[in-house]
């Protein structure tokens, strides 16, 4: 069920994105800031506004139709779903929002949410029916929603989306105006992690039907129910938010105005950040890191991005059907250099698949399993070349690696793609003695070629959709067919099924741990490269901006103090 949000143009995007970070400034640091030269007169500034980056023009703000991160960033601030994703002590926390309270039955298949009394920006009350309408609209086949699959845990959702069930059979109903009830297909341990995402937002039937296909293309077609409303939207230029006076928690919202500038060029963003045109954004270029740090006007927030880069192999290929050959390729990667050089230090070598900071039942998955399959593989095989030769002999090929014909398929034709491919080429040459060729193709062609299994070795990145390891593991099950490798292992499928059907986090953790071991150590299906990190520069006067791991940026509680 997992699907990536932002993998398109994968790796290169990591270096430019608007930051997502998890560590927040400690209290001490905060005290220091105020004693600096900008010495605040105390208390927040009179004029409360913030300028931030929106990575690209949102494709549409219709929650049923949008598939990009940028629309999520805007919608998260102008809409109020059942819950909101916030950060506490560097961890993502789900907070009650549209729903005041909720409960589930014993086996976790029925969830009931009790809505608070809150209003749309035009004064009407948000009702449970608005939620039901939104969910069913996303699932309706004729809507053609790209993210409908996230709702598949709901009973009959998948069948309705496929035109095989009626709308009435979908497991969501408004018991009364303030009570929303979900019936799930089976227990879903991460159901709460879907409740803040845009596909679960309430939608206004009357407004949407009046706007028709135009809903979400301009601000005038929409009504809002979140901390802010959109006051201006100039396509490809900016989205301006204004405080929502009708918001139920308006007292917590300090900012009167938030301008999200749409700037796609890295150098332009950096100039804006430097001269004060924007107050916060992700920075990766070492030159700019230095230049900005030297000003002493920024706090630097570092943290993980819920994503892993990886190489995958076509197991229908004459070489890569052999597990030893695949493992040799996995061992050939120099992950430390990859993180340090290729990613300018904004990454961590990946010896597992599921990235750090992803949680299982509120705990860090990586810390909890405390095992990295690739470390074991590396320890047991000090000589990858010997392993490769063994594999070549097994398939009856010429045991001389120099005679292997291997082509790496690289997505993208930019200078950045070239760096990635050449780095891999060099690793395979040095460690395995292979002279691999590279073929550079544009992204849509890359997708087609890999879908048709017309490749040998290719690489991508995967970003999780929700905060549960499932988003990294169910993509490799036999029926998922998300990344075509030709691999299938019933044992793996069973483990994932076990994790999906259970609410016991101990059982699930064990299942994922074993599954990851099969995926990497036993079967050598993919070769994880690095866990990507983010680094965000925030002006010292900008306080309380949150960067949840899942979610983009949260400015509901943000304010400025000491802005000149």
């Amino acid at each position, binding site marked *: 069920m997992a699907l990536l949000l932002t993998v398109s143009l994968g790796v290169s995007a990591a270096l430019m994105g608007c930051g997502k970070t998890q560590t927040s400034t400690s209290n001490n640091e905060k005290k220091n800031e105020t004693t600096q030269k900008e010495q605040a007169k105390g208390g927040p500034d009179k004029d409360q506004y913030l300028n931030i980056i929106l990575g690209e023009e949102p494709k549409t703000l219709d929650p049923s139709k949008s598939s990009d991160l940028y629309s999520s960033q805007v919608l998260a601030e102008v809409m109020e779903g059942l819950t909101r994703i916030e950060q506490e002590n560097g961890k993502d926390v789900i907070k009650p929002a549209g729903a005041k309270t909720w409960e589930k039955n014993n086996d976790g298949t029925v969830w009931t949410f009790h809505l608070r009394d809150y209003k749309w920006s035009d004064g009407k009350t948000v009702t449970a029916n608005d939620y039901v309408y939104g969910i069913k609209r996303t699932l309706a086949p*004729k809507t053609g929603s790209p993210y409908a699959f996230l709702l598949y845990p709901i009973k009959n959702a998948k069948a309705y989306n496929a035109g095989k069930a009626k709308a009435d059979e979908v497991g969501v109903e408004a018991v009364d105006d303030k009570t929303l009830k979900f019936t799930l297909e089976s227990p879903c341990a991460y159901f709460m992690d879907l409740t803040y995402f845009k596909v679960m937002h309430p939608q206004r039937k009357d407004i949407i039907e009046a706007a028709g296909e135009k809903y979400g*293309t301009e601000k005038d077609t929409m009504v809002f129910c979140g901390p802010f409303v959109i006051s201006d939207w100039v396509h490809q230029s900016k989205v301006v938010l204004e405080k929502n006076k009708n918001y139920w928690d308006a007292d917590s919202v300090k900012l009167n105005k938030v301008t999200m500038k749409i700037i796609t060029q890295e150098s332009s963003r950096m100039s804006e950040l430097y001269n004060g045109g924007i107050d916060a954004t992700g920075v990766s270029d070492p030159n700019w890191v230095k230049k900005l740090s030297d000003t002493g006007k920024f706090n630097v927030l570092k943290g993980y991005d819920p994503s892993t880069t990886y190489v995958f192999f076509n197991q229908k290929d004459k070489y890569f059907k052999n597990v030893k050959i695949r493992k040799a390729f996995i061992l050939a990667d120099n992950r430390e250099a990859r993180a340090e050089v290729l990613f300018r230090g904004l990454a961590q070598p990946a010896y597992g698949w599921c990235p750090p900071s992803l949680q299982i039942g509120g705990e860090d998955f990586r810390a909890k399993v405390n095992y990295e399959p690739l470390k074991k593989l590396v320890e047991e095989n000090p000589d990858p070349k010997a392993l490769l030769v063994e594999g070549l002999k097994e398939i009856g090929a010429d045991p001389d690696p120099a005679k292997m014909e291997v082509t790496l398929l690289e997505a993208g034709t930019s200078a950045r793609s070239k760096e990635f491919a050449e780095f891999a080429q060099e690793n395979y040459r040095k460690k395995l003695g292979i002279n691999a060729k590279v073929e550079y193709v544009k*992204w849509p062609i890359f997708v087609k070629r890999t879908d048709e299994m017309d490749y040998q070795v290719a690489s991508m990145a995967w970003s999780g959709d929700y905060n549960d390891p499932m988003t990294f593991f169910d993509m490799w099950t036999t029926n998922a067919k998300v990344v075509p490798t030709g691999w299938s292992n019933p044992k793996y499928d069973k483990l994932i099924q076990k994790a999906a059907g259970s609410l016991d986090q101990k059982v699930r953790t064990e299942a994922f741990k074993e599954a990851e071991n099969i995926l990497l150590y036993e079967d050598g299906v993919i070769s994880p490269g690095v866990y990507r990190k983010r680094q965000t520069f925030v002006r010292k006067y900008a306080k309380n901006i949150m960067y949840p791991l899942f979610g983009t940026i949260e400015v509901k509680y943000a304010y400025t103090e000491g802005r000149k």
Partner: protein
Amino acid sequence: MARFLLKRFAYMLLTIFVAITITFMLIHAIPGDPLSGMARKLPPQIQKNFYAKYGLDKPVIVQYGRFMKNLVLHGDLGESLAYPGRSVVHTIKTYAPVSGRVGIQAIAMGFVIGIILGIIAAFYRNKWPDYLVMFIAILGISVPSFVVATLLQYVFTVKFMVLPTTGWGGFKYTILPSIAMSFGSIATYARYMRANCLDVIGQDYILTAKAKGVSKLSLVWKHVIRNAILPVITLLGPQIAMIFIGSFVIESIFAIPGLGQYFVSSVSDRDYTMIMGQTVFMSSLFIVSLVAVDILYGLVDPRIRLSGGKK
């Protein structure tokens, strides 16, 4: 004149038709579809629903028929596939003028400065002003506009914070992008104008005029420019057409909401309807501009007759 225009108009329609048809077939022939620009891969059912909604599950020829029908009968170019709900016609109508504004300023600047530099270079042939102008011209042609743009941005918004770095709304936002964009055309016009001027200066009638004692200024104004500018106008026509298309690079550096960004991203997004819309828009503009140049010729140079007439 009327016959000429009518004939050109008929050719124009034919050319546009051919351009549309070829583009349509080509974009459907290249690998990938609008979904592949969105995300890695969506579950099969999701893809099916999406294709059905936008009629992409039908054979290409049926899609082509439907597209032509909407275009000819309703003047409708459909809805963008990458930006659901946005009409292509509306997008072009709204954003072409934005690109146009920057473009016109750039062309005006490029044209005027280029011509003046060209004339100066011609009259001071092989002296230092000539070398200087040609040096600028070579620089202008060989340094890509994005380098100029980034440099200007750095100098005027980071080093000296006098102009806005990015954004749109008011004259000050257009200054840097216009200058960055005009750089290349200043160079082109200067080189053309210089070559043409040199040609004209060598003509007998200039010698005659000089002999008659015509002042230098009026010599340049009445005799040189009028004769030398003709080929430059040939260049100007299509350039004016292109300004509405905008520059992807300049627009993304300065975050200008113009058409240039759509023009490039629609291809990588496989936004079929948007690509077609841009094709229709651009080919029409281009062809109209060629006709306009023909008419301009007649005005500038009486020797050129547009239609048959007396020989």
